[in-house]
């Protein structure tokens, strides 16, 4: 565990105690009201809050590539169907594991190219190296589950991949001997012979080497003698080549190569433990990486995961590896909680880089138990800077039937639109959320604007409401009312009249607006031509009376009352005149 000492400029200026609070990726430091003892306080200034963030830049461009590429692999992995037979699945899992590793490798290479410029990158490179090493070993031992015979070859590849320069020299050492003796050696992977056949041949060869040593055949040439000793697997000789080998696991694999090429997986751990002890010597203590590798050789998967979580401080690795192992059905049930915990830790780690919220969604989807809940909480906190972003968030919610969140997001956007006077936008958000209450609010706004200005704004919207009109009663009224105005403007008076009347009789119009509607009827009543029929006039009259019979509004001033009664009188007069003319018209027989 490293401890960091960081000087925060400006903190503690006022000689007050500082408090702090942990956040998901940062630390909040604030000044409290408590004075430090014995110090005279300076003048009270405004307290400040400091956000302290770790230098390690999770949002570094190269690491982001790692997150994005691995996300694609992760999603592909989740899609592998359960019913595929396990033989085919194994090769799929191995190839997925290789994909992950190639992503790690690409990331590492890029970091190494930039390594000179930024020191945190070198730190990342060494972590990625360790990760790839462990992952590769887990792939060989657990995912590919190489059986005896090919196990050693895979281990050879593994060691080779990670110690390429050493390998070159080792190859030199090996090549200096007769190639023929090695031919049969490399025949194993082709499967041209069974394990036992190979074993017999190998033992025969091994005995021959031994005999050469005993006979001092190579006594004249020390170099050749050393080689022969190596071939026989003499541990002391091998240990002498410590620099070439550089790590205990290289020593292990070399040792196995020359003493037990047909090693079986369960026997691995004995050799691993002893190799490590022999190589490291009595004084050196194993590093965390060594312990992890040793646990892997012991096939203790649980221990490997546990140690990785603690030692590596890299949730990306643990989360993805355990997910793959889980798919391979290698984790026992008591590990599943572990998986869940690991995944949520990865998510909170990703949370620090705010842009990655879309990646996180797929991980939340596959988080057992609490994934859905976390996602619901998380998605509501994504800042909605633009409509496009809000649309993307909504799509995520709608796809997962998160109706609460859909409603609340649409409401936020609609309110914002309303505040900026974008009534069409506000309406479109209400339509998406099927929010009748908000649609009513918007309609009220329109009607208010109309009564303030005397004309309708946003006619392009009102004239083209379409089926959206049915979302709320008030909205329907608004649409129809606008239609009335339009009909009037087009001089289609009888249709307009019919519509106006229906607005009142069908109770689409709110009571509060009846007076306005009746006033709108006045010009129609005053036309030379009779527009309202007798029946229609009677209905208008009854509407007027219904309106007047209602309880008086006590808040009305005297002036308002006067206006109201004048209006009523005018209407009554107009209606009466219209009635008279209508009766005459309808009574007249056309000749």
């Amino acid at each position, binding site marked *: 565990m490293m401890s960091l000492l960081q000087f925060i400029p400006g903190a503690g200026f006022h000689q007050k105690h500082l408090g702090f609070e942990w956040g998901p990726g940062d630390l909040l430091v604030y000044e409290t009201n408590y004075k430090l003892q014995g110090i005279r306080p300076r003048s009270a200034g405004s307290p400040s809050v400091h956000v302290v963030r770790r230098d390690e830049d999770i*949002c570094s*461009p*190269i690491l*982001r*590539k790692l997150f*994005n*590429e691995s*996300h*694609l692999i992760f*999603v*592909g992995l989740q*899609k592998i169907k359960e019913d595929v037979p396990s033989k085919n699945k194994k090769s799929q899992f191995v190839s997925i594991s290789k994909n992950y590793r190639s992503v790690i490798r690409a990331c590492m290479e890029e970091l190494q190219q930039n390594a000179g410029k930024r020191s945190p990158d070198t730190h990342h490179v060494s972590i990625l190296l360790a990760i790839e090493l462990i992952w590769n070993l887990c792939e060989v031992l657990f995912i590919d589950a190489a059986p005896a015979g090919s196990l050693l070859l895979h281990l050879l590849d593994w060691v080779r991949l990670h110690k390429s320069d050493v390998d070159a020299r080792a190859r030199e050492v090996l090549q200096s001997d007769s190639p023929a003796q090695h031919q049969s050696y490399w025949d194993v992977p082709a499967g041209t012979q069974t394990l036992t056949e190979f074993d017999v041949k190998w033992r025969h060869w091994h005995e021959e080497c031994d005999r050469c040593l005993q006979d001092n055949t190579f006594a004249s040439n020390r170099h050749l003698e050393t080689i022969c000793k190596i071939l026989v697997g003499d541990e002391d000789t091998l240990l002498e080549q410590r620099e070439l080998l550089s790590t205990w696991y290289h020593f292990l694999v070399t040792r196995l190569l020359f003493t037990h090429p047909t090693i079986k997986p369960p026997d691995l751990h004995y050799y691993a433990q002893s190799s490590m002890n022999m190589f490291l010597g009595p004084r050196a203590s194993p590093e965390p990486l060594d312990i992890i590798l040793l646990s892997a050789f012991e096939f203790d998967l649980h221990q490997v995961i546990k140690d990785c979580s603690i030692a590596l401080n890299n949730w990306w690795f643990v989360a993805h590896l355990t997910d793959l192992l889980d798919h391979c059905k290698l984790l026992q049930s008591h590990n599943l909680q572990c998986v869940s915990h690991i995944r949520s830790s990865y998510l909170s780690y990703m949370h620090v880089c*705010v*842009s990655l919220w*879309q*990646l996180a969604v797929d991980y939340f989807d596959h988080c057992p138990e609490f994934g859905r809940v976390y996602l619901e909480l998380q998605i509501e906190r994504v800042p909605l*800077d*633009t*409509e*496009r*972003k809000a*649309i*993307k968030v909504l*799509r995520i919610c709608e*796809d997962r039937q998160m109706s609460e969140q859909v409603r609340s997001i649409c409401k936020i956007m609609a309110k914002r639109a309303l505040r*900026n*006077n*974008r*009534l*069409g*936008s506000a*309406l*479109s958000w209400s*339509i998406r959320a099927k929010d009748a209450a908000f649609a009513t609010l918007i309609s009220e706004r329109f009607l208010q604007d109309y009564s303030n200005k005397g004309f309708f*704004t*946003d006619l*392009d*919207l009102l004239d*083209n*409401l*379409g*089926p*959206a009109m049915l979302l709320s009663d008030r909205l329907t009224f608004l649409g129809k009312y606008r239609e009335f105005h339009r009909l009037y403007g087009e001089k289609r008076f009888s249709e307009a009249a019919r519509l106006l009347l229906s607005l009142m009789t069908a109770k689409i119009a709110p009571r509060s607006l009846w007076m306005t509607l009746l006033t709108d009827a006045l010009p129609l009543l005053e036309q030379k031509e009779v527009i309202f029929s007798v029946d229609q006039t009677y209905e208008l009259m009854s509407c007027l009376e219904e309106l007047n019979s209602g309880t008086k509004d006590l808040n009305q001033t005297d002036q308002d009352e006067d206006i109201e009664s004048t209006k009523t009188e005018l209407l009554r007069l107009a209606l009466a005149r219209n009635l008279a003319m209508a009766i005459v018209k309808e009574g007249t027989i056309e000749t």
Partner: protein
Amino acid sequence: MDPTAKYISQKISRTRWRPVPAGLLQQPEVFAAGSWDNESNRVSIWSLGDDDSDTDGEFDEEPRLLCDSEHDGDVTDLQFLDGDRLVSASSSGAVAILKLQPDCQALSLAHVWERAHRYSCDNAPCTAVVCRSPELVSVGEDGRVILYKADQTEVVRVIENADSSTIHAVTFLRTTEVLTVNSIGQLKMWDFRQQSDSPAQILSLTGDRVPLHCVDKHPNQQHIVATGGQDGMLCIWDVRQGNTPFSLIEAHSAEMWEVHFHPSNPNHLFTCSEDGSLLHWETTSGSDMSTLLQRGWNSRVVSHSGVPLAGEDDSVVSSWLAGDSSKNRLEATHMLPSQTLSVNSLDVLEQCLVCGTDGEAVYVHRQLPNFSI
């Protein structure tokens, strides 16, 4: 052939090919990409490398970064004005002209109209911009349509309150006419020769008012226009003829972000969507797109390799107008190997296709499969 993928560590909102000089019959090599949703957004210029390909025509070159420049706010749209000028639209409401130095060594800001789109007390994102040199038109969430000239510092004309809802996209129809689409599913035609601030024509679907997000005009026939919307439906309209679209195709299962006719071969259409797919639509019969439009077609979606992709919805066959189904077919092919996060943008020029996703990857096809001019 699979496209080349390049992860560029920023979510990509727009990718655009740099125009090749006319008459040279070159394949495009340089494209611009704009980012969004980052703490600091950038417009970047990328090159595909040398055109001297190997004899077998394999291009394994990844795109490499030539230059980039910081951008204030999300890049909501990007268009090349000409070979060395780029117009960008920002979520801060600004419209900027960026100049690309010769040899693409640097990208610098030539001119910016700050707060071209705005609310009275807040910023309003500019949602789209279209160019026909030297004129530019931008539209935004504030419902304004603004006309600029590239060399003039003042805007030429503003149509205030052009729309009560957000205008999502705009395209030139004729030199003085533009077509806009908005979030209540309307297409509006604006004629700048007219003094009044009201649209010359309004078209919309008779059904639900589904927001429209993208629009593109047929390169040869001015009156044919394709739109895509929130429900992933691809609609083809004839703007001369009334109020309903000719064709309605269920193209995608989520918002369609961009639709493009191929500029030199309009029998090919490309769409990309929030559902993570990019589709290439082409007619399989001999007739060209416009005849097909009048007669109608059946459409069938096939995946790139002929095998259905995981998660693909089988019922993406359109409901369709009567047509001579045996002869007229419209086929769609998936252009990306697997389902990614949302494909936000695409651009197609000659034989090359470039697109950008929310998975921070750019995909480039240097040779569109089954494509002939």
